[in-house]
């Protein structure tokens, strides 16, 4: 019994998104354009307006050229899973809940990553390298969070 737990894949079932009504964010002037775009269901990433380098999370200065001029291009909304964990408890309530935090590489924004949940498949079927596309989750105080579904 114990050995089957260790060596067989665990059948977790559907990967769920965490409920939006338990998710808060805060913003500052450097990060707010990202979240304002998300409200309009537009996936963006912080790009240096001078040298074109992408950086996430958004910071006040470009680490390559030190410019403080930001641009917020609209990205395709697709991404590739870079790594992930499979979690089985809702972090707010401690109740059983299957969700998969993923780190994704954003298409159209080389070097920029986003941390999110992935859905659209069973948790045990999530793979590194899997193509995903953005879905939008309403969260507290009128904000919207980018999550991803298996493409």
């Amino acid at each position, binding site marked *: *019994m*114990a*050995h089957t*737990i*260790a060596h067989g894949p*665990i059948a*977790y079932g559907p990967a769920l998104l*965490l409920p939006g009504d338990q*998710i*808060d*964010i*805060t*913003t*500052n002037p*450097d*990060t707010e354009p990202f*979240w304002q775009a998300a409200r309009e269901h537009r996936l963006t990433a912080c790009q240096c307006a001078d040298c074109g380098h992408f950086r*996430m*999370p958004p910071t006040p200065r470009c*680490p390559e050229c030190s410019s403080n001029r930001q641009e917020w291009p609209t990205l395709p909304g697709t991404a590739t899973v*870079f*790594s*992930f*964990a*499979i*979690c*089985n408890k809702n*972090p*707010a309530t401690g109740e059983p809940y299957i*969700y998969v*935090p*993923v*780190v994704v590489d954003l298409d159209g924004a080389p*070097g*920029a*990553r*986003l*941390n*999110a*949940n992935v859905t659209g498949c069973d948790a045990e079927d999530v793979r*590194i390298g899997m193509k995903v596309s953005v879905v939008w989750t309403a*969260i507290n105080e009128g904000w919207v*969070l980018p999550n991803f579904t298996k493409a």
Partner: protein
Amino acid sequence: MAWANQDKTAIVGVGATDYFVRGKSWPRTINDMACEAVLNACADAGISVKDIDGFAYYSGASAGYVDKFDSASFMETLGMPHVSFSAALTSGGGGCPGAIGLGTAALMNEDCKYTVTLMALQQVPTARLGTVFGKMAPNPENSFLQPAGLVGPGHLMSVLARRHMHLYGTTQDAFGEIVMATRANTHNRPKAIRREPLTREVYDASVMLADPLRRLDFCLETDGAVAVITTTMDRAKDCRHKPAIVHACAHGGQREWGRAFSWMGMPDPHFASSGHQFTANRVWQQSGLAAKDMDVALIYDHFSPMVLMQLEDYGFCEKGEGNDYVLAGKIRYDAATGKGVNGGIPVNTHGGNLNEAYIIGMTHIVEGVEQVRGTAINQVKDAEFALVSGGPAQLPVSSLILRSA
């Protein structure tokens, strides 16, 4: 080039409280436990607590997760007449052994005569690590991490471990071997929290908390305090024990690691690493030594995969070969010979954070000191050099090489 401060200072006193399972130290206060550790370290060194005139903290002088050390409060409580050095390394537990370098800088600058480095930890119900982060509205930076449900350190470390498994074929068998190999070192340690021998069956049945990591891949949650006293070599000669000489000490890291799992932006190969490559290179350059020259390695083990990744970053094996190195038994301590197994170097002869106690890295320094003194419970035969590492976490990470006198 050899480090300018090589062999100029030594750790001369170590002291600790009992180790308590999370929350069980109450109604003792965290300050009382910190004082006990400092007093025990002074007694071990053979100095008066009133001789301490320097404080070299890490983790931003945090005491655990919610409390803060303050030098003036220590003076008020323990009666030190004056202080002439009071500083901390930034960020978290990664700076633990690096704080001995901070103390060395103070001592060599003749700012003070004896520095104390300490940590105390107490998790009352309102101050549990995962809970602390999970219930706070994230700041603007963490608003790019926490909404994904990455709220506890185990979630974060799991993501790094997964990438290592993907790139190098690393297995959960290796994580289990790390826990079992270091558990084998606690059966004879009265203060250790987990002393029962660990079988593969028990490891395999351990609940999966953040796949691929099980509960037993997570370190203990311990209450307690540990303090160490560092001084110059000339003063060390008058102390009670053989000095544990500070041979090399470095803290820092590189931008590609940066905020690490608080950020998740690390490019390969840094993502699936311990973030120690830069600091490892520094201590090896400072000392002219390499991993093979170490007699024992006290490797920060908040999560088992991070031991494997540090073995790679410090060059005990090549990058990507940690799985095979560990599974060949090379981190085990052989009590019969007092040496390693299969050509390896014993790791965490005290049982580490996974099995003995977790005081944010300090227990590794204590074990390093006892090993080079020759007084360790699981003594490595003729131990001359001990490596002590801190982190892996947001920079700085750090490491220390202690040398026997």
